């Protein structure tokens, strides 16, 4: 092995030692940086082109000055959801119900998601646009009119960041299930590499840890939770 390879090996081994030492010191700054890098490797983002609901009526938000989530009904019948902190899943379900969308919401620790499948695939397929971290750390998505018809349920599973409930999540799975929805059975979630078929990814330009991604093609259904090796 040549000089460059040997030198790189030494530098990397040093990096491992340094990192291990830093982990023991639990330097907040370092952890935040590493957290976002990890997500960079895993997630990513095409410009999602979320059709913004024009005139919007805010139905209800959590706490007034620091809402955990906001559910907004657009004039075109779409429902926009913005989650800024992954707390109170039941409250979000209730909000969505008020907006006419039946839902099951689960928030899980980093690296965990719900075991698939949760039920029969929804009748409307196609990509769901989800934007992660663009609005200060949370997740936003829009449910187009008719996307979750009667008898079907929006199923959201979020793998939270270990850095906190209000940090950009480690992973998001958004699907529509027809009929009964199985209870969430937590399972470990391998992160799909960026730029693969099902998930197109691009780093956003508005800085920081913001990512948009678009789930599923025709052959994948509207699900983000693909299995990696």
């Amino acid at each position: 092995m040549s000089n460059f390879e040997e030198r790189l090996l030494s530098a990397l081994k040093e990096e491992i030692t340094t990192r291990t030492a830093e982990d023991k010191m639990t330097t907040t700054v370092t952890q935040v940086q590493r957290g976002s890098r990890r997500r960079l490797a895993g997630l990513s983002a095409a410009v999602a082109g979320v059709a913004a609901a024009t005139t919007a009526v805010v139905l209800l938000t959590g706490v007034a000055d620091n809402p955990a989530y906001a559910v907004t009904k657009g004039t075109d019948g779409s429902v926009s959801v913005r989650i800024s902190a992954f707390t109170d899943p039941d409250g979000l379900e209730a909000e969505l119900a008020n907006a006419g969308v039946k839902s099951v919401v689960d928030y899980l620790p980093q690296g965990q998601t719900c075991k698939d499948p949760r039920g029969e695939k929804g009748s409307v397929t196609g990509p769901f646009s989800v934007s992660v971290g663009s609005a200060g750390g949370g997740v936003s998505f829009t449910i187009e009119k008719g996307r979750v018809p009667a008898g079907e349920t929006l199923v959201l599973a979020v793998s939270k960041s270990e850095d906190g409930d209000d940090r950009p999540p480690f992973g998001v799975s958004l699907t529509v299930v027809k009929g009964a929805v199985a209870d969430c059975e937590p399972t470990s979630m391998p992160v799909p590499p960026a730029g693969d078929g099902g998930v197109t990814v691009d780093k956003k330009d508005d800085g920081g840890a913001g990512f948009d991604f678009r789930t599923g093609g025709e052959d994948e259904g509207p699900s983000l939770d693909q299995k990696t090796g």
Partner: protein
Amino acid sequence: MRLNEDPAAFEAFYRRHVDAVLKFVARRVSDPHLAADLTADIFLAALDSAHTYVPGRGSEIAWLYGVARNVVSAQHRKAAREARATGRVAGRRLMDDDDLVRMEERIDAERRMRSALEAMAGLPEGERAVLELVAIDQLTVTEAAKALGIRQVTARVRLHRARKALENVASPAPVYVEGQA
């Protein structure tokens, strides 16, 4: 795998794969300095995502190529450049003149593969990714599926579509067919 905690385990992993990673990079960029940077970035990213590797569920190289693809993607390069300004491991600073010559030789050796990759540029991303890993990087379809985090059957379908699409191109690059072995 405790890659990111155990220097000895990492060294073994590094030695197994450094050559493949250098080739992977040389097939994709023509600037030796950038190639050195990317090689370092790929192993750093492997440390960052070591927790996503599950031993026994797919080969190491498939997982590593998945990581490498992310690193080499243009979006990441931009972010990595910014990170590198303050980073501790910058590949190009580790090269001396001899290394530079050898890196250029590697890049030259992969010239044919780079033009094959260019010929695939028009394919949809999902299809191109599978064809790239199978035809250019010599992974099996199963490994490519694992590297991309997609189902095997999806990978097969995409590979088929990609090959079909390339057949229909007016001036196809025959190189990719030879590459698949």
